[in-house]
């Protein structure tokens, strides 16, 4: 069984998968913000990337900088097989607990 991922970790990891070769800090932040439809602190994304890398679900490398970043290097991320496995497990778990229910749910029956 791979690592159990939280919802935010899934959002960040899926952003990396979607972005492919362009997955660096700010791009991941924008992608996660767009998918979750809310403002996210850059620090929250960086902390999650750090945690995922520590869990060996992703790996990073330094790329080159650009003038808009004052030449500062970008750190690019890519998922490791364990990361992909963790995403698949997370999706399977959600599918499993929803099996047999129609979505969206209708109002629950009253006990009265």
């Amino acid at each position, binding site marked *: 069984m791979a690592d159990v991922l939280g919802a935010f970790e899934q959002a960040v990891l899926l952003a990396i998968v979607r972005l492919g070769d362009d997955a660096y800090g*700010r791009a991941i932040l*924008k992608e996660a913000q767009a998918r979750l439809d809310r403002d996210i602190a850059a620090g929250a994304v960086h902390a999650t990337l750090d945690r995922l890398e520590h869990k060996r679900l992703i790996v990073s490398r*330094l790329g080159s900088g650009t003038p808009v970043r004052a030449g500062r290097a*970008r750190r690019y*991320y890519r998922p490791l097989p364990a990361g992909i496995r963790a995403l698949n497990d997370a999706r399977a778990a959600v599918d499993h607990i929803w099996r047999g229910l129609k979505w969206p749910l209708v109002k629950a029956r009253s006990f009265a």
Partner: protein
Amino acid sequence: MTDDPSTLPPRWAESLLRMMLRPADRESISGDLLEEYRQSIVPALGARADRWYVRQVGWYVLRATWPWAALAGGILVGRYLLDTLAPVQYTRGIRHPRSTIMSWALIATYALGGCWQAWRTARLSGGIVGAFVTTALGGALSSLGTVLCLAVWHDPQMWRAIQGSGGIEEALYGVPLMLVPVGVLVGTVGATFGRTAAAIYDVSKPNTKSA
């Protein structure tokens, strides 16, 4: 979108950010924030963009210091609770073991907080600033904890116990304020050790492993 190199966030905030980051993250994270600031935030928020930047930096500073600040705040609130719920007779000129234990626990927290921060940032200044934030935030948490305790326990007997152990003013702001210079001083000593250890083990090498 603005790529204008003269569009810069507050210099002090950027210095603070770089001070609190690990060497491996210093370029990439400060670059991400600068890119976001220039390309998205300044065009969207204009003059309020600096506030956004300062908020982001605050997040990194809090993240680096909150465990030590929470520990310091917890020690202070614990001492307050012990003194009010299980009061002891303090005698002038004689140190009670409770005072000694609490004092050393605080000193160890400030010293280790400064040491850890200087170690991970490989910067003495990072350790000193970390110690200052730890002390200030720990004091604020302690004041908040004291207020919460007062909200729960505030009968006349409790008030007498509080007055007998230094008074409410001392617990609310006297001790937290007094501890700021002490925490910074002790944290600086810890930071010196942390910085030395970082130099010996060379943690300043940026993480450049390839994917």
